[in-house]
């Protein structure tokens, strides 16, 4: 049947450009407006503030652990130890951040999963995309807004850690305080923050991509948490598994999987004292678990580790963008 065939076709009307509307200039939002809108949504979300507080609690807990071990061993504040010597301040600030990072990874993975999967799960994505918003722009704007949130998370952690470092003097004298802050110390601290940010962004994209693939925040969060937990377990199993194979490949398994690692960039940004302290619990790919004792977990150069992180980022962004742009919205 052809119920409309009787009606003559109409000449194309021009696409309306500047309507008179109480809503103002109606048009599709540009990238900056989309980023602003996403930040507005994040700012209004109590969960985001909850995650920020949780991250600060992690940092505080890490600082408490640091103080506990320094007091327990008794020589933690002596030169050659974490809180003594010329690098005492950068170590004092960096150590809570290093320990708090593990919790932050989970928080950012959850944030990524919730930000994308939540809109799929509730169907809110229908409303967004029915307004003519360019899908790729929307996705990018969301990533940028979340990256800003991650940067805020790192900054808040840094400020918290810097603040807490001032209280060390109440526990032991002498102790590093912010009065000892100088250019090299600041640079070292900021470098560590950059590594933490890279780490958080990877977790964010992992959570986001998995929830876009499955269109479910719950699955995205669970799968990314599974990865983060699984890498610790794999760190224990893979060396044993590799050796048990008694083959050339088996012997190289750890090097193949551990050396070009995602967390190597992070490890490279840390002061040497802190990077030496990394072990399997900092992630399967954070350092070589069979490395010589005392060796830093920096198996690859900064450039190589950056390229590895960049490659993973491009893969995750590419997959999520392709699926987001091409797939039908069935929610």
């Amino acid at each position: 049947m052809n119920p409309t065939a009787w009606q003559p076709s109409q000449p194309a009307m021009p696409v309306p450009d500047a309507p008179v509307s109480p809503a103002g200039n109606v048009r599709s939002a540009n990238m900056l407006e989309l980023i602003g809108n996403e930040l507005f949504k994040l700012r209004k979300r109590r969960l985001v503030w909850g995650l920020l507080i949780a991250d600060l609690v992690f940092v505080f807990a890490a600082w408490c652990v640091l103080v506990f071990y320094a007091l327990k061993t008794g020589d933690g504040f002596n030169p050659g130890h974490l809180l003594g010597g010329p690098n005492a301040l950068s170590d004092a600030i960096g150590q809570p951040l290093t320990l708090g990072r593990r919790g932050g990874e989970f928080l950012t993975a959850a944030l990524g999963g919730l930000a994308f999967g939540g809109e799929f799960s509730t169907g809110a994505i229908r409303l967004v995309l029915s307004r003519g918003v360019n899908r790729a722009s929307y996705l990018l704007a969301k990533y940028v807004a979340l990256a800003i949130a991650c940067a805020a998370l790192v900054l808040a952690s840094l400020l918290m850690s810097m603040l807490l470092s001032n209280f060390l003097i109440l526990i032991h004298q002498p102790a590093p305080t912010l009065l000892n802050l100088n250019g090299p110390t600041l640079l070292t601290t900021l470098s560590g923050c950059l590594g933490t940010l890279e780490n958080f962004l990877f977790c964010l994209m992992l959570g986001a991509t998995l929830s876009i693939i499955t269109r479910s925040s719950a699955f995205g969060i669970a799968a990314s948490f599974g990865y983060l937990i699984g890498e610790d377990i794999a760190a224990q199993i893979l060396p044993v598994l590799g050796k048990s194979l008694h083959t050339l490949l088996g012997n190289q398994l750890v090097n193949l999987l551990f050396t070009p690692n995602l967390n190597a960039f992070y490890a490279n940004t840390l002061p040497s004292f802190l990077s030496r302290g990394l072990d399997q619990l900092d992630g399967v790919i954070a350092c070589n678990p069979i490395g010589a004792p005392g060796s830093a977990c920096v198996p690859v150069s900064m450039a190589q580790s950056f390229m590895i992180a960049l490659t993973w980022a491009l893969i995750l962004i590419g997959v999520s963008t392709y699926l987001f742009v091409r797939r039908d919205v069935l929610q």
Partner: protein
Amino acid sequence: MFHPGTQSLAPAPQAGWRIPPTPPRREVILETVGLTKAYGKRLAVNGLNLEVLRGEVFGFLGPNGAGKTTTIRMLLNLIAPTSGEVRLFGQPLVTHPGKLLPYVGALIEQPSFQSYLSGRDNLIAVGGYTGGVPARRVDEVLEIAGLGERGKDRYSTYSLGMRQRLGVGAALLTDPELIILDEPGNGLDPAGIVEMRELIRKLSQQGKTIFVSSHILAEVRQVCTRIGIIRGGQLIGVGAVDVLLRATSRWEVEVENPEQVCRLLAGVPIISALNIENGMVVIKAPTMRGRDLISFLAKNGIWPESVKRSEEDLENIFLRLTEKEAGL
């Protein structure tokens, strides 16, 4: 007559009885051309050709699974058609979605907003996708939606009816040219349904074009100027509501001698069927006017006891058409 597959429902002009007015200039706001969506081998929408004119309230009817929502999603660029085309304001949607869709307000199935935001903040966020909306417009829309006092409450605390009203508010936020409402009466109480009907009428009077998908046929009858019925992904009928109903109307004439009246009316050209039921003359003549019938009988010396017009309701028409198409 309204038949599945007919191309036009406009009655043929009848000399002496009715001269149809000159139709106004037609401006097609929404058009689908051979719109098809296939999921594997299953055709959810099959070659849909539809036109919605400026200023009309178009009702989109169909049973569950008929392809209504799939069609609406394609109209809003949420689903890519397998073949065919959607044209909004005369332009292909696929090439200008960013320019065309900001002029379309839509409520798709159950409204879904960010549960952690208030109703007001949700509208601000929705407005943000079209370049931002002034705060006074947001407040105005909240008033229109009847949520003025609850605008600052979190969306998660809203009842189903309130969520539906907020969905309609979001659709009206940018004062769009075309408004697509998918089951707007869902979750509304009787008073809310009346308000919704009044709102649709008011918007129509303002010159808005409204595309309403609904199962509530009584509502459709009261607000829509034209309807389309879809079944199995295919449009099985489209036409003006009054023409559609008039096509099923009949006159029941109570007279002393029905056989005589039948003989008298047999020669009238606009009568399509004539018979006697329960002692009354039943005349099927969609375009016949009552006063003409009475006058005609009186001139021939017949004074009826009563003349009553009845018509099939939209629900029966809908069921008849959809069952017929399904071969039931």
